[in-house]
């Protein structure tokens, strides 16, 4: 079996092919799946997040690493499930009503998947009713609301209100993100948390589900 630090580097470098090959090799060699995730893969994504935060990495690097991580997790997850390990948490994510921008939301979704969350992406221009429906269906720990347009930001508090009216607000944590959003605004409208970018979303989500 090759040195597992190569798995860490493959994810850090966004090398999906190498990541998959190393993961398969490690599993075939009898490595513990959970150990692979916690000792090599998750730390690589943490480092990716740090490099993005200090702006040595930009979106392309972030996406390549998240794709590599996602591919490896797809190999490992069935084994984890079989051993009784749960995902970090369940997430429903979407862009709010009236706003069809989905690039930022997709980035956050892939980072959360790379961070070990089970993600239900319900798309863009999602009405408050559809968010309520998705929460009923998937029973998530977190609901992530994305908004890029200033003119449709008001749909964020309306969605939170709809969750309240449906009696679901207390069963989930609501996280908000998007270009015009600030932490203060997110808290003012009754969200539980705010992420400044896709990399920040992962530690925030982990904190919110008590797994930081």
């Amino acid at each position, binding site marked *: 079996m090759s040195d597992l630090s190569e798995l860490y580097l493959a994810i850090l470098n966004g090398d999906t092919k190498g990541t998959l090959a190393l993961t398969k090799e490690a599993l075939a060699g009898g490595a513990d799946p959970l150990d692979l995730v916690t000792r090599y893969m998750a730390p690589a994504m943490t480092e990716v997040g740090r490099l993005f935060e200090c702006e040595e990495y930009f*979106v*392309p690097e972030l996406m390549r690493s998240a794709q590599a991580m996602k591919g490896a997790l797809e190999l490992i997850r069935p084994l984890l499930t079989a051993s009784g390990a749960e995902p970090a948490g369940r997430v429903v994510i979407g862009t709010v009503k009236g706003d069809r921008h989905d690039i930022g939301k997709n980035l956050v979704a892939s980072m959360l998947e790379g961070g070990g969350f089970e993600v239900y992406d319900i798309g863009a221009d999602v009405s408050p009713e559809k968010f309520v429906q998705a929460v009923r269906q998937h029973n998530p720990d977190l609901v992530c609301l994305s908004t890029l347009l200033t*003119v449709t930001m008001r749909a964020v508090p309306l969605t939170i209100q709809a969750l309240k009216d449906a009696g679901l607000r207390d069963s989930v944590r609501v996280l908000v993100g998007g270009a015009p959003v*600030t932490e*203060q*605004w997110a808290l*003012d409208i009754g969200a539980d948390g705010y992420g400044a970018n896709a990399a920040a979303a992962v530690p925030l989500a982990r904190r919110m589900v008590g797994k930081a």
Partner: protein
Amino acid sequence: MTELDQLMAGGPVVTDGAWGTQLYARGLPPGDVPDSWNLTHPDRVEEVGRAYVEAGSQVILTNTLLASRLMLAGYGLAEQTVEINRAGAAISRRAGQGRARVFASMGPSGKMLLAGDVTEDQLLEAFREQARALAEGGADALLIETMSDLGEATLAVRAAAETGLPVVACMVFDSGKGKDRTLMGTTPEDAAQALEAAGASVVGANCGSGVAGYVAVCRRMHSASRRPIWIKANAGLPELVDGVARYRMTAEEFAGYVPALVEAGASFIGGCCGTGPEHVRAIVAALSQGRP
């Protein structure tokens, strides 16, 4: 002498300000795509263009930023792509009244090459369709703007250049420590060179994190490329007032950056988010002060 050279012969050219916010102010419902108004409310779109011409714009854009087939598909308007673009160019021509040139706007597709949302061929085809329709509608030049991905931007430049019209290409620099990189991490120098190589006659920057930071971006693009530089910056950063984003920078404050932009090599100057006709008037005034 090309038409662009003639236009620039009198010194820096004044372009226009934002269109979307002007249309929302005229009743466009939040969440509707502004470009659809080219077919449903052409009179109000023309008003925006006229207001800029009255304010002194020598170049006005078109209400077609989001009118590629790929973007319009998200609004159920894909089948009206050609019509919306032709109408957009024709409306701005009417608004220009022969006093302002029409540089037709082409924005991002909303799809990411890197994520595999779309292929290069699909992007090329979508930009070709939009560029042709804008040319048919009477555009004097095509403007690739608000781009975050250099790969997508260069494809758009290639597609636009096939019409034979001059092409202006600009990107958004709002990321990195100095807010001087694109979302994808590209520097002003790399962007200027790649856009020029792809066939752009003018290169530059629009939108972003405010006009102050675009002075340095302008200087860097100017030093990296032989092409004239186009700058259309936001009026600072928005502040949230009662949950709504507002740009607090006044037209005079905005125009205060005009001498620095000219010194940094800008040949085309206008505004993006948070700017209107009053900003254009202030730019005109600032430029006339610098002339004998």
